[in-house]
C-alpha cells in the first residue's frame, strides 16, 4: 500500500512487514513493524505499531520473535490460540524469507 499526499482518509490495520518512508530531503527510512494500525488522512499519516525496528536490526528481531512464538506455541492450550500463533509464525517466516532472501 502506498500513501501519497491527499490520500482518502483511511483506517487500516497493519500486518507484520516493512514500512518505507521518505522525509522532506528525500532520505529514505525503512522499518520493520509488528502489528498495529495506520490512520491516513489527506495531510498526515500516523502509524502506531506495537513494535518498530530499524531495518538493520530487523533480521534479529524476526528471529527472536519466531523463537518466542515457538515457545509460546508449546505452552498454548486452546486450539484457537494455537492456530493464531501458528498463523503469526507463518507470516513472520514468510516475511523473513522475502525481506532477507538467503
Amino acid at each position, binding site marked *: *500500500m502506498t500513501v501519497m499526499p491527499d490520500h482518502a*482518509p*483511511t*483506517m*487500516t490495520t497493519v500486518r507484520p512487514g516493512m514500512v518505507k518512508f521518505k522525509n522532506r530531503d528525500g532520505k529514505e527510512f525503512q522499518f520493520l513493524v509488528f502489528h498495529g*494500525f495506520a*490512520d491516513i*488522512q489527506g495531510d498526515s499519516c500516523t502509524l*502506531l505499531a506495537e513494535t518498530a525496528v530499524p531495518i538493520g536490526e530487523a533480521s534479529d528481531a524476526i528471529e527472536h520473535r519466531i523463537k518466542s512464538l515457538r515457545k509460546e506455541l508449546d505452552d498454548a492450550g486452546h486450539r484457537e490460540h494455537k492456530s493464531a500463533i501458528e498463523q503469526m509464525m507463518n507470516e513472520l517466516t514468510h516475511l523473513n524469507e522475502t525481506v532477507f532472501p538467503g
Partner: protein
Amino acid sequence: MASLKDLKLRIASVKATQKITKAMQMVAAAKLRRAQEAAENARPYSERMATVMADLTAAVGEGEEVPKLMSGTGKDDVHLLVVCTAERGLCGGFNSQIARHARLHIRKLISEGKTVKIFCVGRKGYDALRREYGELIVERADLREVRRIGFENAEDIANRMMEMFEEGAFDVCTLFYSEFKSVISQVPTGLQLIPSAAPEGQEERSESALYDYEPNAESILSEIVPLNIRVQVFHALLENAAGEMGAKMSAMDNATRNAGEMIDKLTLSYNRQRQEKITTELIEIISGAEAL
C-alpha cells in the same frame, strides 16, 4: 521538662528517622527518573491513540456496525469507576488526592440515582474507599508484586474490565488516575473509557474524517477499540507510577527537612539544659566552699 537523657534519646531517634527519610528520598529520586522516562515515552503513543479514537468516534455515523465498547449500551445507569492508586503510602497527598477525586464523582453519581461499582487498582485506593463505599467495590487488582509496570499488567486489568462489560455488569466506565505534570504536581484525572467519549472542541475535524476502512469497519473497530482501552489503562498506570515517585520524593524531602529543624531545636534545648546544669553545679560548689 524533659530530662537531659530524654532529650538525648529523642535527638538520636529523630536522627535515625531523618536517615530513613533521606534514604527513601534518594531511592524515590532514582526510581522517579525511570518511571518518568517510561511515562514520557508512552505519552505520544497514547495521545495519538486518543486523537485517532476521537476522530473515529466523530466519524462513525449512526446505524453503522459499531462495537458496543465504543457506542455503549445506550443506557447510563450503572457506572464502573476504575480507581488507580499506588501500592505504598508515604507519598504525601498522592493517593488521597485520587481517592478524593473519585469520591466526589461517586457522590455526584449516587445523588443522581445511578448505581456505582468500583474497581480498585492498587491497595491504597482500596484502603481509602473501603470504609465509606466498601459494599460498592466489586473488583480489585493487586500490583504489589510488580516491580516494573509492563503492558501485560494493563492488559490484565483492561481485559477484566471488558469481560465485565460483556457480562453486562456496567454501562459506563471511567478511569481515575493522576496525570504526571511535574515532580511537585500531579493532577488527579477522570477519563471515560467506555463508551468512548468524543472530546469537546474536536468538531471541526470531523468533516474531513469520513474514513475508508481496510478491510472493513467492523474488523478494524473491533481491534482498535479494545486496544485503545488497554493503551489508556497502561498510560494511566505509567503516569501513576511516575506521579507516585514524584510525590514520594517531595514528601520525603519535606520530612528530611522537618527532621533537620527538629534536631536543631532539640539540640539547642539540650545544650541550654546542660549549661544550666553546669552552672547550678558550679554555684553549689562555690557556695559550699564559701560556707567553710
